């Protein structure tokens, strides 16, 4: 075999290996998880972010783990097309985030009931209301600094940004009803929850997570969605001005 042929073969093989490595890094490590951009959705120093957390079901969340979804800014929460299966979202710096979480998953007791204390929100409280089904409230709006996940079947997950000292239990819907079976959920019992917090004055990446070990089928619930971006953990990107 001639020298030029050997050189060409070597270069082609090198290029293939390099491309393969880049593909693996881009596809499996970095992933193609979309980021929902709320950084341009703020008005008057306030931005409204809407999430939902869903039970394990056999719909669009693959694998069939419990999962958060992020709504597109200003979209209609009653349409499945409004929801993005991701846990990445961006918000502007030094802005009040009015967070709304639609809790469609049933209750699971937190392993550490400390996480049922609301921390880091404006006023140190959150408000929630349970719905038997869409537009059918089961009771009044509760404003509370704690939501005991052991005494009542009332906590499904948590939303926490530890580096901002933000820890909020996420309420679950009425335990006697059948849960939504198709993600992203737009019908079925849910808990509507609201709280507010301030983003830091400078940009940065802030991980958020659930503190209820909800990885069904994994040892002590620690694996699966707990360890995977796009399910029960994610990142909030704070965009500096």
């Amino acid at each position: 075999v001639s020298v030029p042929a050997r050189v060409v073969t070597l270069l082609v093989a090198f290029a293939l290996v390099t491309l393969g490595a880049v593909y693996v890094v881009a596809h499996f490590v970095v992933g193609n998880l979309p980021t929902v951009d709320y950084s341009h959705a703020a008005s008057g120093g306030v931005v409204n972010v809407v999430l939902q957390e869903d039970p394990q079901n056999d719909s669009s969340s693959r694998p069939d783990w419990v999962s958060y979804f992020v709504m597109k800014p200003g979209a209609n929460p009653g349409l499945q097309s409004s929801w993005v299966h991701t846990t990445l979202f961006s918000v502007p710096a030094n802005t009040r985030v009015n967070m709304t979480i639609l809790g469609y998953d049933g209750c699971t007791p937190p392993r550490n009931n400390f996480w049922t204390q609301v921390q880091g929100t404006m006023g140190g409280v959150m408000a929630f209301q349970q719905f038997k089904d869409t537009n059918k409230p089961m009771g009044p709006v509760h404003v509370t600094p704690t939501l005991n996940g052991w005494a009542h079947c009332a906590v499904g997950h948590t939303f926490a940004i530890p580096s901002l000292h933000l820890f909020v239990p996420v309420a679950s819907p009425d335990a006697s009803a059948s849960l939504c079976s198709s993600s992203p959920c737009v019908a079925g019992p849910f808990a509507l929850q609201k709280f507010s917090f301030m983003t830091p004055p400078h940009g940065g990446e802030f991980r958020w997570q659930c503190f209820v070990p909800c990885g069904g089928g994994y040892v002590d619930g620690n694996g699966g969605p707990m360890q995977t971006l796009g399910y029960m953990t994610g990142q909030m990107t704070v965009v500096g001005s």
Partner: protein
Amino acid sequence: MSHSAAAGASGDTRHGLRIFLIWLPLAIIADLLIWFVWYPHLPPGRMSDQAQGQQFDIAVMAVLAAPVLLFVWVYFAYALVVWRRRPGDDEDGPPIHSNTRVQATWITATAVIVLGLFVFGTVQLIVPAGAGAGEGPSPTWVPNTNNTLQVQVIGQQWAFTYRFPQFGGMETTQLLLPMGEEVRFNVTSLDVIHSFWAYQLGVKADANPGVNNVAFAKPQQLGSFTVRCNELCGIWHGAMFNYGRVVTPAAFQVWARGLQLREARDGLLRDLPPYALTYDPTVIPQLGKDIVKVAGITGANGYYYPSQLQSGDPGDPVSP
């Protein structure tokens, strides 16, 4: 003794003396610099008795190691300069004979250094009070006082929380400690293995589920310190850190009492489990059967997920 052997011996003596005279001032200078210049800046600092002890240990090790290192370097440089091959010199080197004095000196010196470090290291590892390391559930080396602040460190994916049994069992994500008071850390975990590493305090203790690992520290300086998990524990292990603060005893009392009152007012103290040295990571015995009755909706049957849960199994939340 032959003429050549006698010449070689006298030559070795001169070389040895030269090497010694070069090495000695360098070693003295290096040790003085280490002790008086570097020592105060060595990690982990002097924020606690334990950190101070570790800093002292590192300084002693450095003072002992520097002359040995310098001797190797000086000998190496001397050999390169003095015993290098000269142009046109094609002769073999002289035959090497053993030198009893050199051998005895080498063996004695290294034995003294190694055995000395063994004794020094062993003593320093356990004095004072475990040197900041986790001593397990029944610590052998404890502070010489009964007046210790109890702090329970609970590791969980991916945050540390702290319980203060002397303040009603209140729990918080913040760690404040009073200066000058002995602190007993009871370190445990609720899920996987973590490691509580309060760097500037010189404290590092594994956090194992179902195990109480005890470590001690006595803060000596005001200021902040870093708490970091030192055991790979999942996707956010790298983000599992926060900062603690050493404050005056008065400020600590104000903070702790205030937090206890707030948690009592909010009902959190009532909702927390009774203080215990460990917590079962798989079962919450405080829960009754109410949760269990709601099969198919809790996703956990009121407890936690069995590791081999299959679709269709009783309790499988996917099942209708």
